[in-house]
């Protein structure tokens, strides 16, 4: 275990985190997902040592670092707001953690290498105040990685950036993680969690509501809160195929099923999300007229549960055919549809009933991995 957080509590006036525990294995990209003000940033500050917890312990590589000094922790923190040293150049900022125990030529070699990896070579002589948001974030990341932390903490590293820098920083973060760097990333944006995280912890009012792999959390949210917060009940991992026409309509392959997806993204591995509000259910009818929904599946209702003001109907759309052919492939593919109580009555829906489940290609949100 690389990092273990045990029963951390901290109370401020009118705000607290309570008994937060989780484990992070080496190489994980661990996303702490939660709405603003649930204590995510506070938790990062506690792990980094900027704030002392009221109770609980933190272990890094098995060593208790709860009361270790900030500078001895081997934990790097990239803050939400720019913390580049304004009186230094980009070079001096990146070299800052390297100053002790390295010769001048070692430092310049390492800075040059980091600058290249992070795409900031052309900025090295600039004053850090003259950089754009995306450039600053690259330099901050390079500087923190230069300190060779065992665990890299990121506090909302993307949300304050403009739309063009976001995908670039995302790619960069993925690459840092692929090099073996363990990352804990705090965000309120589920698309970041989906596109970057290997594991997710959802925070709700000062506690960790659920932790698990990305697919687990999105497909099986433990509580209504999580389901509502992440907003997406239907979440599938798979591969986006090359389009069959010049149109934006593409095919997304997940398990034995194909979804039609309207996206301008290129082919590759990724996730699709479909809001349960966008899914409609109808009774089997051979005479049904075609609609604009590109995705129509026959399936069996496996569950009907109350969800807020409506009813959530869970339909398994993995066809009987595939179940017969290959037993290993027989994992159910459940899609949730949020419909009204009245519709359940009118359509006479009940568990075990066969129905048609439909959603538009434009209702499928594709997020690349």
């Amino acid at each position: 275990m690389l990092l273990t957080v045990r029963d951390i509590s901290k109370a401020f006036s009118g705000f607290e985190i309570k008994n937060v525990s989780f484990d992070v294995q080496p190489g994980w990209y661990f996303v702490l997902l939660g709405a603003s003000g649930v204590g995510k940033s506070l938790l990062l500050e506690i792990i980094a040592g900027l704030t002392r917890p009221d109770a609980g312990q933190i272990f890094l590589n098995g060593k208790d670092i709860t009361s270790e000094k900030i500078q001895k922790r081997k934990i790097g923190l990239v803050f939400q707001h720019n913390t580049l040293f304004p009186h230094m150049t980009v070079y001096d900022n990146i070299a800052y953690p390297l100053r002790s125990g390295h010769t001048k030529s070692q430092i310049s070699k390492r800075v040059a290498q980091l600058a290249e990896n992070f795409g900031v070579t052309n900025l090295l002589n600039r004053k850090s105040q003259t950089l754009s948001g995306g450039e600053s974030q690259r330099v901050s990341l390079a500087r923190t990685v230069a300190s060779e932390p065992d665990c890299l903490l990121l506090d909302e590293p993307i949300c304050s950036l403009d739309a063009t820098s976001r995908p670039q920083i995302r790619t960069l973060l993925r690459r840092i993680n692929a090099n073996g760097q363990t990352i804990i990333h705090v965000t309120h944006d589920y698309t970041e969690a989906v596109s970057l995280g290997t594991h997710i912890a959802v925070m709700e009012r000062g506690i960790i509501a659920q932790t698990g792999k990305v697919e687990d959390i999105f497909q099986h949210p433990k509580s209504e809160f999580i389901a509502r917060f992440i907003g997406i009940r239907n979440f599938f991992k798979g591969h986006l195929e090359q389009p069959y026409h010049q149109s934006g309509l593409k095919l997304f392959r997940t398990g034995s099923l194909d979804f039609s997806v309207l996206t301008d993204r290129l082919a590759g591995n990724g996730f699709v999300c479909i809001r349960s509000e966008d899914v409609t259910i109808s009774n089997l009818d051979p005479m049904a007229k075609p609609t604009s929904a590109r995705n129509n599946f026959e399936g069996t209702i496996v569950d009907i549960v109350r969800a807020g003001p409506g009813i959530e109907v869970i339909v398994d759309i993995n066809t009987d055919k595939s179940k017969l052919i290959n037993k290993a492939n027989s994992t159910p593919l459940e899609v949730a549809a949020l419909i009204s109580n009245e519709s359940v009555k009118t359509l006479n829906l009940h568990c075990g009933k066969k129905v048609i489940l439909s959603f538009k290609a434009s209702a499928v949100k594709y997020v690349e991995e």
Partner: protein
Amino acid sequence: MKTETLKRKYEPLSLLFAAFGGVVLLFIIAPLISMFLNCSLLELAETAKDPEVRGSIWLTLLTSMAATTIFAIAAIPFSYLLARKQFPLKGLVSGIIDLPIVIPHSAAGIALLSVVSRGTFLGQAADKMGFSFVGSSVGIMLAMAFVSIPFLINSARDGFLSVPVRLEKAALSLGASPFRVFFTISVPLASRSIVSGLILMWARGMSEFGAVLIIAYHPMITPVLIYERFGAFGLKYARPVAVLFVSVCLVFFIILRLLVRGKDAAHR
């Protein structure tokens, strides 16, 4: 649009306040100008050749600079502590720092004398080491520092307060020691206020009269020399010394200000 701004510029209230400002400015400048105008170049040249005057100006410049430098070593870290840490009786400590500003400087001299004169513990210790606070340049420095140190501490503290704590925390999390963070982040970022505090302390020390007079009449710093010449020979003999000293102070002051501004521009 343009006429609107013009109108706003010349509204009656602003004009009234500008008139007040003019009176205040005149009040500061008029006596200085009058002093300069009443002093002939010949008098000034002769005074500048006077070894006693030259010696006293050098002594004043050097003692005030030395006092500022020596006390800054302790005062700057202390200002950092005041800006960053909460501790019991902090309000009282801040009040004590401002005390030298509010007490009469002759009284400050008397107070200092009562801890450094020959009969006291410090005085005797100095005696054993072969010097004396009273009537020496060391005594002059003490008197100058006593009355001027609040300017440095307050200015440096404000400077440190303006440095974002998160930058210091970021530096710590990059593995730097608190010592290194202080010297590479806090001090450089507060340098503008620290330097202007140093200039203020130095200028205030250089112009000190009351406290120095009590502790060290001799060796004679220029403010004391001006007072002595005025008392012994009158205005005509005191004025050229005053003009010369004010000119020297102004030159130094302007050079330092320009240097600070140049440094700021380089920072930007």
